[in-house]
């Protein structure tokens, strides 16, 4: 250990392990190639001004989604490696991954998928859509929004750095002690995990504050609470949960860090530590976390179902009530993750019943979606495929959840492959399909052209078929005694099932490849599918009022809202009268300035984080001072906003009105 480089030595680079070594080299070369290409086409200034320093919620949303999709590839690579290894490591065969390596892979898979795929994607969609649906110009704190994104990116960077320098945690995605304590995990792996999550956790809490404030305080005139789109309600509930739950994660991971770095005894075996306390606290966070992910997903489905059924959402108020009920109830069920830890029958019974209760509002939502479709004219576009696929498969996953909520049943299948099947069965159809639906649904709003439908349907079928092949057998394997996270399978009769699952993984993989193909192809042929009107799907909510992509400030004049489905009524009236509303009184618009604070702060956070992981104390202090200095420098600025001149506003608005007027009859597909 040296004072200048801490624990960092040449042996941190995985020269002895071909897989991480080759992957790292490939990734570094690929990143360098991208950087060189960007330099060649002189796109850095564009990227810097239009995206990196942007305070525009739409741009920040796009960056989150890009981050999430990029990390999906990494997380999925881990998944394929695991499946392939498990298929090969049956009976006398040993597979190709030793336990130390395999453990890092499943830990990285879970950590990346939850924290750096699902969270950024869901937050990205909330970022892009919520201000547009609320009929306003931006979120409450646009600069803080930018900082939040870059802190998440910093966390993602650190986790991926572990592939190249050092190792990752081997303790699963939640790093349970005592295994995650210094005594049993002396390397840097757990530290990478802890530091990355603490940094991105700060960003996430700030996002929570930002969105609750926005939804409660910044909406178009006339948009009372019960006139907000359901997606905004689910975003509100999700962000309330973020504010409520993430501080517990921060505290718990901080305590583990204190144990590891300063020799405290929160969760150690000696000194009076109690590792069960960690389990309790981490799941106090962990359960609301999955609702943070799934509630906005349900919101996306609500939007998609009502749009593509051509009907208002059935049971709006019951949807709102169900959403808020899930929000509150999600804080009363966490013990169902450790029924077997020994709290006893009384405690288990309470949490078991609460866990079953939470299925009820979810059921209400499913019925509402079905009743929305019933009596409507359903259009089977790609987002609707995902929605129907979700309804068919998620219900099964939810039912297995109710099964698991029964403590005696859970005692048998806790931490088995049955559990693994259950949670993938709710996350993939629940969250991933919603993201795919939302991606297709809002892509034209963001970029001005739709994605290719046929390829989109092919991607769907790959995900749907692949998911079922990859996870349904695990229910059986769980009943037959299969434990999760096994590096070696001793029962050869499972081979065919594991084979099916491997095929499923490859089918999903093919789907991921097709997604890339779809994107590239759609960009190449975008002129054939231009979204000229801004409303390609005959939408019902306010984001479809703007052209695609919307101007920086979203709306020339904030729309007046007179009922639920603000945009739909306005559109129908315009079609009926064959005229748009009279031109409003245009004013110059104040918008927040761009800021480099986010990316610079994240830079210093990454430096500090890296230094803490490798015990390079002087560098950690430098990073900390740097981050604080950026903060103070930002606080000292005098100009916060720039003004968009009224001529520009008028020009854009008149262009929008002209296009709308021309296409008035095409806008509604039901007339």
């Amino acid at each position, binding site marked *: 250990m040296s004072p200048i480089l801490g624990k960092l030595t040449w042996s941190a680079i995985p020269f002895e392990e071909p897989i991480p070594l080759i992957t790292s080299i490939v990734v570094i070369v690929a990143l360098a190639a991208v950087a060189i290409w960007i330099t060649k086409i002189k796109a850095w200034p564009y990227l810097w001004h239009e995206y990196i320093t942007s305070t525009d919620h739409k741009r920040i949303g796009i960056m989150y989604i890009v981050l999430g999709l990029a990390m999906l590839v990494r997380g999925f690579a881990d998944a394929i490696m695991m499946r392939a290894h498990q298929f090969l490591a049956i009976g006398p065969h040993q597979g190709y991954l030793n336990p130390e390596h395999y453990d890092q892979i499943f830990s990285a898979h879970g950590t990346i998928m939850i924290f750096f795929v699902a969270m950024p994607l869901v937050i990205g969609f909330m970022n892009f859509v919520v201000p547009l649906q609320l009929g*306003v*110009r*931006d979120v409450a704190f646009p600069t803080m929004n930018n900082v939040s994104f870059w802190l998440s990116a910093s966390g993602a960077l650190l986790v991926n750095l572990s592939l190249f320098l050092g190792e990752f945690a081997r303790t699963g995605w939640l790093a349970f002690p*005592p295994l995650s304590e210094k005594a049993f995990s002396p390397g840097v792996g757990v530290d990478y995990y802890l530091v990355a999550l603490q940094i991105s956790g700060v960003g996430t809490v700030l996002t929570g504050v930002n969105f609750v404030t926005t939804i*409660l*305080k*910044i909406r178009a005139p006339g948009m009372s609470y019960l006139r907000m789109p359901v997606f905004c309600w689910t975003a509100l509930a999700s962000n*309330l949960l973020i504010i*409520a739950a993430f501080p*517990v994660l921060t505290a718990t991971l901080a305590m583990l860090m204190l144990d590891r770095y300063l020799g405290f005894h929160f969760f150690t*075996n*000696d000194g*009076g*530590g*109690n*590792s*069960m*306390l960690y389990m*309790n*606290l981490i799941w*106090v966070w962990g359960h609301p976390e999955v609702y943070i992910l799934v509630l906005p997903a349900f919101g996306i489905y609500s939007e998609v179902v009502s749009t593509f059924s051509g009907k208002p959402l059935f049971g709006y108020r019951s949807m709102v009530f169900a959403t808020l009920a899930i929000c*509150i109830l999600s*804080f*009363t069920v*966490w*013990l169902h993750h450790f029924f077997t*830890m*020994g*709290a*006893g029958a*009384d*405690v288990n019974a309470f949490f078991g019943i609460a866990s079953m209760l939470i299925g009820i509002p979810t059921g209400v939502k499913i019925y509402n979606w079905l009743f929305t479709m019933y009596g409507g004219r359903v259009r089977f576009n790609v987002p609707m495929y995902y929605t129907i696929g979700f309804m068919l498969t998620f219900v099964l996953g939810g039912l297995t959840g109710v099964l698991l909520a029964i403590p005696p049943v859970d005692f048998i299948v806790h931490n088995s492959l049955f559990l693994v099947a259950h949670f993938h069965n709710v996350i993939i159809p629940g969250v991933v399909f919603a993201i795919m639906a939302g991606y297709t649904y809002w892509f034209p709003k963001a970029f001005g052209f739709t994605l290719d439908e046929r390829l989109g349907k092919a991607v769907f079928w790959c995900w749907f078929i692949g998911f079922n092949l990859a996870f349904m057998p695990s229910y059986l394997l769980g009943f037959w005694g299969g434990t999760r996270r096994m590096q070696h399978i001793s029962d050869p009769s499972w081979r065919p099932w594991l084979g099916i699952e491997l095929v499923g993984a490859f089918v999903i993989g093919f789907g991921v490849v097709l997604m890339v193909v779809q994107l590239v192809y759609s960009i190449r042929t975008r002129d054939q599918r231009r979204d000229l009107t801004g409303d390609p799907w005959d939408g019902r909510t306010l984001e479809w009022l703007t052209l695609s992509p919307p101007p920086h400030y979203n709306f020339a004049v904030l729309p007046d809202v007179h009922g639920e489905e603000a945009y739909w009524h306005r559109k129908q009236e315009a079609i009926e009268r064959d005229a748009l509303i009279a031109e409003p009184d245009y004013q110059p618009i*104040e918008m927040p300035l761009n800021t480099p604070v986010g990316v610079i702060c994240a830079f210093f956070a990454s430096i500090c984080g890296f230094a803490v992981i490798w015990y390079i104390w002087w560098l950690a202090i430098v990073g900390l001072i740097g981050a604080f200095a950026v903060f103070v420098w930002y606080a000292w600025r005098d100009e916060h906003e720039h003004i968009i001149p009224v001529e520009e506003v008028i020009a854009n608005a008149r262009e929008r009105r002209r296009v709308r007027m021309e296409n008035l009859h095409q806008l509604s597909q039901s007339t």
Partner: protein
Amino acid sequence: MTEHDPEQLNVAPGAPHDSLFSETIAYVIGLALALLLTGLSFWVASTSALWGPGVAVGLVVLAIAQMGVHLVFFLHITSGPDNANNVLALAFGVLIVFLVMVGTIWIMAHLAANMGPMAEMMNLQTQH
């Protein structure tokens, strides 16, 4: 985004909104009450005049009262319609705090009763 709230239907949390005298008096009263409650707490904790198990309960009640004094007199959280969002947020926060603390204490107490001292258990487990 920078439009004024003309009908004063919302008040920022913590924002004072009265004359100089009444604002100052609010803080003075708050200070006096807080000092009183603090003094009471210290006295209750050291006196033998109260029934033993009731002392802890009494201290908790006094603490909650003092938190209320802080919220009303220093943070200006009132029950008026203009404060609704602030109160709702506070209520949500209090609910979560309650669930986290009571839930954890209840669970850990049961675990302690059923699962015994961790150190001993680990010793048993590490001796094959």
